[in-house]
């Protein structure tokens, strides 16, 4: 078996006395679309933040393509090919939509901290950015300040920024949160399109999205994964039914 794209082992995180993540072992293969679901407060976003080094884990390791990420800064992890989006929209609001994408392209195109290239002159860079804008259907909004976009458009832009760098592991944190049905469909299609051939890890509440997208699903409850497997297996899992789906249904009504 080849090295998994992302491998978590014994991952734990405590804030003071509160143990939020209580030992997670998870292995996600290459080009797999993996969804993490679970009730509110289960620790999904915390798990994301642990993987991307936004928080330091209390114990355990995160391996990307077999390489231990311990002690690395977020930007170093990103350079290794892991990119993420955020639950709360996290874009550059004062810059134009085009600029948002272009910034996301700079590092992977090898520009690094250069101050001898004028970005406007790099035609290939602009073409790439426009191609991504086309992919996320924001070409028409190209020169607007990103902060003035609608919510769904901003979420789309966020996904665009996340994938632009060409990372092969993409992590999306609730990409459809707070969206209407039509917007959700639009985003789901978009995710489908842009993560073709890449490893996708997403946290999501909308079961429609989850079951439509994911190859495999993990269920996180109180900082522990109680089930991992194919969508239909998880759906049928009694533990999951009891711990999560029931609660979720109750919540909805």
């Amino acid at each position, binding site marked *: 078996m080849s090295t998994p794209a992302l491998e978590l082992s014994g991952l734990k995180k405590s804030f003071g006395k509160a143990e939020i993540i209580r030992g997670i072992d998870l292995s996600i293969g290459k080009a797999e679309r993996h969804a993490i679901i679970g009730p509110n407060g289960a620790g999904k976003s915390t798990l994301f933040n642990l993987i991307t080094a936004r928080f330091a884990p209390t114990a355990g390791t995160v391996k990307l393509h077999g390489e231990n990420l311990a002690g690395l800064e977020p930007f170093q992890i990103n350079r290794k090919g892991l990119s993420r989006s955020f639950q709360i929209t996290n874009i550059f609001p*004062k810059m134009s939509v085009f600029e948002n994408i272009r910034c996301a392209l*700079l590092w992977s195109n090898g520009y690094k901290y250069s101050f001898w290239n004028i970005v406007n002159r790099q035609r290939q860079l602009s073409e790439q950015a426009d191609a991504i804008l086309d992919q996320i259907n924001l070409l028409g909004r190209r020169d607007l300040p990103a902060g003035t976009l609608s919510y769904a458009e901003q979420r789309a832009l966020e996904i665009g920024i996340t994938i632009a760098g060409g990372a092969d592991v993409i992590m999306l944190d609730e990409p459809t949160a707070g969206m209407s049905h039509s917007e959700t469909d639009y985003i789901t299609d978009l995710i489908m399109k842009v993560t073709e051939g890449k490893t996708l890890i997403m946290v999501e509440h909308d079961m429609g999205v989850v079951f439509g997208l994911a190859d495999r699903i993990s269920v996180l409850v109180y900082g522990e994964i109680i089930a991992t497997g194919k969508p239909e297996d998880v759906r049928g899992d009694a533990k999951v039914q009891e711990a999560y789906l029931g609660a979720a249904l109750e919540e909805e009504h």
Partner: protein
Amino acid sequence: MNEQLKTDPTKPAQRMRAGGMTITLLPWIIAIIAMLLLPKIFTNNSALTIMNQMSITIIFALAYNMLLGQGGMLSFGHAVYAGVGGFFCMHIMNMSDFFAAMPLPILPLFGGLFGMGLALIVGAFSTRSAGTVFAMISLGVGELIAASSVIVVAFFGGEEGISGDRTYAQPFFGVEFLQQEEVYYLTAAWVIISAALMYAWSRTPVGRMANAVRDNPERAEFLGYSARWVRYYSFVASGFFAGVSGGLFAINYEILTEENLNAYSSGIILLVTFLGGVGFFFGPIIGAIVFTLVQTVLSLQTELWAFYAGSLFVATVMFFPGGLAGLIMMHVPAIKLGKWRLLIVPYFKTLLPAAIGILGLCALIEMIFHYRHGATGDNEMTLFWTTFDSHTIMPWIIAGAIAAIGIGIAKMTAPDLKDAWNEANTMGGQS
């Protein structure tokens, strides 16, 4: 103000707001021609000196805006980079053999390098985070260097500073820089070069990422860029251009003192930059020009200049946070829509009375000041080319009436202006 922008997003006007400025060479060519012609119009030395002062402030303010406007770093001690660059230039001026073999126009380059050197050291620990921590470290370091300037006499020359003579440099194509006009052209050339370089910097990958880090450092980190390194590069570049302005100061004034380093100068440059507008590349240029005029020319007219400058500044922050440049750029949508003509008459109706009213108010302030602090028996004062007795009631009534009527009319016509403004910024209708 933003809510009034209802233009079509695809219009270039919007592109300008979002991306800064679209590149055209035209403004640069106009600037170069203007700078070449200005000394032909204003030939006296004082006008040249004041224009040189503007130029130096322009470079410094643009360098400062690399931090504040483009990088989101608020510095309370940036004068030290300009000052230290200038002090080194002055020491070079005093190294007779070396200086005699060096053409004067390259001296500011040394200022830049030493300014950059200091920024390399300080930036190593100050750019770790932006916000308050950066601001306070800059304040602390600024105070320390300013304080050491009076203690370390060997380098800073104490309170008297150190001085030199620019004319000892190697003549540059026969020019010895004896006259202000020659110095003017040297300074002007450096302004154009520095401004062009700083503009180009804002277009480079690291310059773009400076904006990204300013807006959202965390997101930038997840794009592969270390926010700290991006800030560091901006800081060092800003230190370089600040140093260049220090070098030009050394050439112009041939003396550097503690004032080139102190907190007051650091505060002033913040004021200048913000007044001009941090959101646009050319904002600091306007700020530098306006502030130099206020400080140097208005202070010839009234002792209360600092009071007016302070009021202007506070009013700018309160009502036009985009600064003077923002005020100008607000009109771009209307111009692009071809509807700016709609604004002329309402502007005339509102702004003219408002200006007259404010002048009336200033007259009242000047009269109070004269009444309280003028010499006994010396009741005559001259204001706006009119001489009158400040101890009689009539001028007070007139000034009060002008202020009240002017501002009153402006208040009455303000709603019309607002309507016209909305109309001019709305698409459609006849233009």
